[in-house]
């Protein structure tokens, strides 16, 4: 047997984060009470019809097409794809089988061009929750807009696949078209693996049930190994569908794919073919979307920020939005980056940190820059910002830099400790710390230590 190589292709489903569903006006959200975001259409009730073609979803899909360098079909046309399953109330899914929105695209990963065969719009099925002897159906997912991205089988190894997927996810996140949460199913990846050698191209196996990039990598490696071993033993590879079993890190056969499912596709008679407006196509074609690497380049080249800190910001698109906005408003870029990474981010799990008032945050940064607040107080100040306006309480934290007040405190301390003052002036310089502590105590900590230190020095050395 000659050397075996693998070819890997991907089918990626991504839920678009439009406000409404693909063909109905119900809310697009999986976070609400089950079956609450469900119209009669989403439940597949008799007599219902698609009542809209979601233009927001279309715009988002077009943005992805643009970044993936795809040819766009200006005529939007939808087909029905049939299969019987309890997650599909109508008995069919509306998709773009015959005329996908985008085709023949590519994405460059480490100088390798990953060819993307097609990108099309479709609607999601309902979510099923299987229990021991019954199944529950949540139609909140039914009808959520999806894009399906299909790559050519161009990957040779698992690491390439994961590098591509990470890049793709960053693109989708930075285009703000999806939350891309694999564990929540808003991004789903099916992997096709086939082996070949000089003489032969073996059957394709599809891997499903992959809920993280780590598992995708493991699953591909394990499947390639399984197939290689089969061939070594002289057995054939059948077109199975396998699933990844997390517990054992192995791929397990789900079903025989020999009998290919016939989806009986035909054009949906209820949705007229829609000409995508020229203005929209032109707008998309002329857009220059700012992606993760654009921001990275900007931060590093223009500001020379710390690389690690920049990555922390870039890995959270909402934090990045906030940072980018603050950068344009604040005169203190480094302080801003510090404050976000070291202070604000601490509250991520407790509050909606992206909802913080930007102009108040700018004010806080200015106070820090002017040393008018103590660095150890910053967290407390930020936490209160989630509950009330900073202007209500900032006086509690502002340091006194009124020289007269400080001088008054110094005079008082020196008068009360005349002996020590003489000792100090006699050469016992260690006593400086004592005086400093006394003055700060007198001022109840609400003073700028730098200013105190300077003034105290003047007085002691008079």
């Amino acid at each position: 047997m000659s050397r075996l190589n693998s070819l890997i292709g991907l089918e990626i489903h991504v839920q678009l984060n439009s406000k409404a569903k693909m063909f109905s006006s119900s809310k697009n959200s999986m976070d609400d009470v089950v079956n609450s975001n469900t119209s009669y259409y989403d439940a597949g009730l008799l007599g219902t019809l698609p009542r809209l073609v979601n233009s927001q979803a279309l715009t988002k899909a077009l943005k992805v097409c643009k970044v993936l360098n795809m040819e766009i079909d200006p005529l939007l046309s939808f087909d029905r794809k049939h299969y019987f399953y309890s997650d599909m109330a109508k008995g069919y899914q509306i998709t773009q089988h015959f005329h996908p929105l985008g085709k023949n695209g590519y994405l460059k990963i480490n100088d390798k061009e990953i060819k993307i065969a097609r990108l099309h719009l479709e609607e999601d099925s309902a979510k099923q929750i299987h229990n021991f002897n019954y199944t529950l159906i949540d139609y909140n997912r039914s009808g959520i807009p999806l894009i399906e991205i299909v790559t050519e089988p161009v990957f040779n190894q698992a690491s390439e696949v994961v590098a591509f997927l990470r890049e793709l996810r960053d693109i989708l996140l930075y285009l703000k078209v999806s939350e891309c949460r694999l564990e929540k199913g808003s991004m789903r990846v099916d992997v096709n693996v086939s082996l070949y050698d000089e003489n032969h191209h073996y059957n394709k196996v599809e891997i499903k049930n992959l809920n993280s990039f780590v598992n995708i990598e493991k699953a591909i490696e394990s499947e390639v190994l399984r197939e290689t071993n089969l061939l070594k033993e002289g057995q054939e590879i059948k077109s199975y569908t396998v699933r990844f079993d997390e517990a054992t890190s192995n791929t397990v056969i789900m079903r025989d794919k020999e009998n290919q499912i016939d989806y009986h596709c035909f054009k949906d008679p209820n949705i007229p073919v829609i000409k995508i407006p020229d203005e929209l196509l032109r707008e998309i074609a002329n857009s220059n979307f700012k992606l993760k690497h654009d921001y990275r380049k900007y931060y590093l080249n223009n500001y020379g920020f710390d690389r690690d800190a920049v990555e922390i910001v870039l890995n959270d698109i909402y934090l990045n939005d906030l940072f980018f906005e603050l950068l344009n408003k604040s005169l203190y870029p480094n302080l801003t980056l510090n404050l976000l990474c070291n202070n604000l981010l601490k509250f991520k799990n407790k509050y909606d940190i992206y909802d913080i008032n930007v102009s108040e945050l700018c004010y806080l940064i200015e106070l820090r820059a002017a040393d008018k607040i103590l660095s150890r107080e910053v967290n407390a100040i930020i936490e209160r910002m989630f509950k009330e306006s900073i202007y209500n309480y900032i006086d509690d934290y502002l340091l006194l830099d009124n020289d007269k007040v400080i001088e008054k405190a110094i005079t008082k301390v020196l008068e009360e400790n005349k002996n020590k003052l003489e000792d100090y002036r006699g050469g016992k310089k260690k006593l400086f710390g004592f005086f400093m502590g006394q003055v700060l105590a007198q001022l109840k900590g609400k003073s700028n230590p730098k200013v105190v230190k300077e003034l105290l020095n003047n007085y002691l050395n008079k």
Partner: protein
Amino acid sequence: MKAKDYNENLLKLKFEVAKELNKKYNFVTNFNDNYYNDKEGIFKNTPIYIKDNLVTKDIKTTAASKFLLDYQSPFDASVVKYLKDEGACIVGKTNMDELAMGANGKNSVFGPCINPFDDTRVVGGSSSGSAVAVALDLAPLAIASDTGDSIRRPASFTNTIGFKPSYGLVSRFGLIPYADSLDTIGIIANNYFDLRNCFRIISKKDSNDLSQQAIVKKANQEPYKFIIFKNCYDEVSSYIKSEMDDLIKQLKKKEIEVIFKEYDSELLKVIPTVYYLIANAEASSNLASLQGVTFARNGYDLDYQDLIKENRSQNLSSLVKRRLVIGTHSLNQDHYSSSYLKACKVRRMLNNMYQKDLDDNTFILAPTTNKVASYSDQVEDDLMFSDAVSENHLILANFSGQPSISIPFSFKNKMPYGLSLTGSLYNDNNLINAAEFLAKIIGDDYE
């Protein structure tokens, strides 16, 4: 009796008579005892019957199928809502062929509908009950649906007016679909005044139906011009032909232009094949929601595979099942391009042929049916269609979406038959005017 003749008392009386007559004619699936509607409007106190494949939130909607015997829709079809907004009283849902599949009105889980003119004969389908309700003068109007000939055929056999509007003028929201690209909601009526009002109301713009995009044309003035569909004329029984000849004579006397036109007979022969491939393909898709999950009758304890098998086996008639098999076959990937796709191409050819040279004042005339209603025990709904043009020509208007109407024409041994007029697309108002114009001439004939 027209809509304006109705008052609260007459409405009540007609409702009671209807319940009594239903025992004999079996034209209603479910009556609505709470029919009274206190809204004001042009149909105040007017009883209107609705074909049982249009969903209603106050009455069950069964589509005359065992599968849906207990189905209660949570919403009203748009046309029902529009009529209720005009004060109409929805008195009942009318019997029909199961899921609108059938040509005789016999294929219903409620049993066959009986022809008021002769109780041994069929009414014609699938909108059988709607036609009977109007024929028995229990309402001036009934709403129905027409996919191949389902309004015009029973209208022809019951001496009523059966109107199929242009495709895309009446919202299909709330219609249990048979074949979306052909399904048209229309009207069975006993007078033209109410027909016009009803059409105006049900053709209101509805945001629930993306395919309702067309705008109806304004009516023109006479003179009308008529094309006699020669292939049909040549085929029909001699008694119908002689009535046609009389009508042509009358028209010519009034100096109205009448021409004979022969269409490509080879192309016309494939009408039933094209219809079956397209209509059944769409039906196999539309009825895929009948699985036993959302619409369930049997086997709550079964797993999905058995559940769907059990429900579809037990609750669909053999006729429906056979049509679903044909439809599924038509869409099979292996012969999709030689069956379904080819049928779509031939449909376009037929449309071009039928619409050619048809201007706003010209109408195609043909006998609606080539004979009177058949004896009930002599017809079965079969998959084999006759290839007689006079039997299939009504389907042409469903293929192209053109408006088409059947009006009472004449009688043979006390059995009625109709005359069909077809106009150009969206020229519905003119078509109704031309129909009324012809009705007067036909009426004159008898005086």
